[in-house]
């Protein structure tokens, strides 16, 4: 086949050559002669390359067909063996018939197509059905002005946020990550979009763009990586579930034998608890230190101290206006245990965080200066592969000495300290699929609320590794 092709090429080339020869003689122009020659050579080579490519494709197709045939033959023998050995309807996966043919293939070569530079693309989908005793739209956490995300879920069936994540190395110096989320009302939003250095050295990492702050423990984790369907009460009231904004972060990992990391961030300051980017659009600063290590082969911990300071300039929360400073300190501790350090069968995760906040400014035009505290503690236990249970208790408290002008307003806690207790049962279909049933006895409002949520969460595509 290749011989005929070469012959064809030769004939075509000679035909072309003879066809162009008279033109050459007629013009007598050296330049055009050279041009014609180049053209001829190019054609010749194009033909050769073309035929070589065809041969290559044919050879590849042959190899593929042979492999497919081998696989089919293997599957056939497997199926045969199964039907002869078991009478049950579902065939047991048998090893290849004796003697096992060595399915060796040479080390894989990376595919040469342009698609091999495609970034890793994955999607997180989740939906839920909830039953909430008292209308969630009217629920309030008295004493606290809440951001727009901090409310309860809707009743009934709902598609929650769907996330599409795209990530890749940009070049040897940078990586990039984009996470777009689409909420149940078809609202598209950029959840995270940042670039990060990979080769600064000496333990330094710089990140810029939009991202979740690394303060606290849960804050930078995506909602699908939490142990409960929702954020704990203090995260809802202090950080509108999660603090993320546009800005820059610098992290430094100390060259110590145990884990010790320092970080600082500078944000635009548009997201709650900030508002209306003050200070030329650089309104929030944070600083934190995280430290941790292994206690023994079976257990490890991570502790953190974080601080956030922001200025709000006419922050609007459901009609309430606040201007002033908001300071927040968070102490966090996580402890993980697994027998022999192998979490596959059983494992335990305990964590808790304490929040201390201070707001100083004008609330609806009335001067306020007061402290707020909150904490949550939770434990999640995997008692057998694929099954987990978890318990959580959370509480927040406002220490405001309420000015008379604010009586009955959002900041009036009516002598009530908001709290919530949750229990969760989880079944994993695999590492990538999860079903959850969660019950919350919610005492954040004056009237206790019973809330039941059933939720599925799945990840498809090459989903990146998770943090501790």
């Amino acid at each position, binding site marked *: 086949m290749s011989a005929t092709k070469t012959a064809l090429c030769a004939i075509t080339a000679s035909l072309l050559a003879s066809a162009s020869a008279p033109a050459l003689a007629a013009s007598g122009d050296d330049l055009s002669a050279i041009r014609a020659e180049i053209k001829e050579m190019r054609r010749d080579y194009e033909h050769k390359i073309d035929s070589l490519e065809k041969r290559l494709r044919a050879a590849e197709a042959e190899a593929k067909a042979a492999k497919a045939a081998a696989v089919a033959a293997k599957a056939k023998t497997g199926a045969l063996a199964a039907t002869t050995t078991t009478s049950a309807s579902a065939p047991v996966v048998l090893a290849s018939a004796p003697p096992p043919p060595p399915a060796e293939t040479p080390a894989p070569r990376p595919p040469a197509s342009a698609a091999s530079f495609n970034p890793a693309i994955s999607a997180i989908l989740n939906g839920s059905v909830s039953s909430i005793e008292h209308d969630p739209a009217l629920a309030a956490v008295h004493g606290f002005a809440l951001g727009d995300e901090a409310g309860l879920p809707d009743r009934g069936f709902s598609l929650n946020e769907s996330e599409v994540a795209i990530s890749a190395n940009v070049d040897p110096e940078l990586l990039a990550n984009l996470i777009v989320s689409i909420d149940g009302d078809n609202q598209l939003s950029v959840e995270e979009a940042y670039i990060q250095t990979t080769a600064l050295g000496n333990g*330094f990492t710089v990140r810029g763009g939009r991202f979740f702050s690394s303060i606290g423990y849960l804050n930078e984790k995506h909602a699908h990586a939490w142990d409960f369907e929702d954020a704990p009460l203090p995260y809802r009231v202090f950080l509108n579930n999660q603090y993320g904004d546009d800005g820059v972060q610098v992290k430094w*990992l100390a060259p110590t034998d145990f884990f010790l990391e320092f970080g600082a961030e500078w944000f635009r300051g548009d997201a709650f608890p900030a508002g209306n980017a003050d200070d030329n659009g650089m309104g929030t600063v944070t600083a934190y230190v995280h430290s941790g290590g292994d206690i023994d082969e079976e257990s490890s911990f991570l502790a953190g101290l974080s601080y956030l300071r922001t200025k709000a300039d006419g922050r609007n929360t459901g009609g309430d206006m606040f201007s002033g400073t908001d300071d927040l300190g968070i102490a966090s501790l996580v402890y993980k245990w697994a027998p022999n350090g192998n979490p596959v069968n059983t494992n335990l995760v305990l964590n808790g965080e304490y929040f201390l906040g201070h707001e100083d400014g004008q609330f609806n035009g009335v001067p306020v200066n007061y402290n707020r505290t909150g904490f949550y503690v939770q434990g999640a236990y995997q008692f057998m592969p694929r099954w987990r249970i978890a318990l959580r208790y959370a509480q927040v408290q406002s220490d405001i000495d309420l000015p008379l002008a604010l009586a009955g307003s959002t900041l009036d806690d009516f002598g009530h300290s908001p709290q919530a207790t949750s229990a969760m049962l989880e079944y994993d279909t695999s590492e990538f699929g999860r079903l959850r049933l969660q019950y919350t006895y919610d005492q954040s409002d004056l009237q206790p609320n019973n809330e039941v949520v059933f939720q599925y969460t799945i990840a498809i595509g090459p989903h990146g590794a998770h943090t501790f």
Partner: protein
Amino acid sequence: MRKLIFLAAILTAAFTAPARADLNVFACEPEWGALSKEIGGDKVSIYTATTGAQDPHQIQARPSLIAKARGADIAVCTGAELEIGWMPKIVEQSANSKLAAGQPGLFEAASFVRLKEIPARLDRAEGDVHASGNPHIQTDPRNILTVAKPLADRFAELDPANAAYYAQRYADFAQRWTAAIAKWEAEAAPLKGLPVAAQHAGWIYLFDWLGLHQIVVLEPKPGVPPSSGYLALVLATIEKQPVKMVVRAAYQDGRPSEFVSERAKVPAVTLPFTVGGTDEAKDLFSLFDDTIKRLLAAAKS
């Protein structure tokens, strides 16, 4: 201000700390830690990230691992996506670009070995499949030898001052290892052709080496724990095609293989799988001594 002084103190401590060894090795699995020790001797300082009791597919990016990866000159791992659930996060968080993919500081053993069981179809409906093939190459000692040479070369590349030392250690190891392989093959001769069941399809390299014949796997799909209904089907298969033993790795849940072992009345064998998987498997040599001893004991009963 006090914070700054603290920071400065740590920085000074970091840069004045005496280097402990010429090469800091972060070994992803115990077998590569042990091989690094054989090749690197006292010129390397080794931190082994996992133990024989842990499932190398499912390790968490613990703070301790990030701290150790920060100062590593080389990560010696299996590759072939075995560590995909944790290593990328550790490398990113450690901010150590030496260990990034494509750098000489990331040594992936599986890239030097011809992998078996490359899936024809990549679909998570098939369970926990590895696109590049079965990564559990360390269960065949001939693969260890194949990997030892490029590892010695890599050590020499990163630490040229000790190149001769690594080459000499490799030559010595290769000689002892080749002799050991011959010894193991002679010992394991009675195992040839024996039909066995495996809990997880993690033994293809060992079985091919020793000529053991895998009749059935207890997991319905790789990494998917078997239900009791599925184990009943496995037992029906074993009734028609008897096996001599049920094999599992030390890090795996023993219940499925014990369930089958009791009902099919064949021994359940726990193999170390890697260094430290059993008390006897203290280094690479005793790993295979113990593996063959346990297989022979089960074959006799």
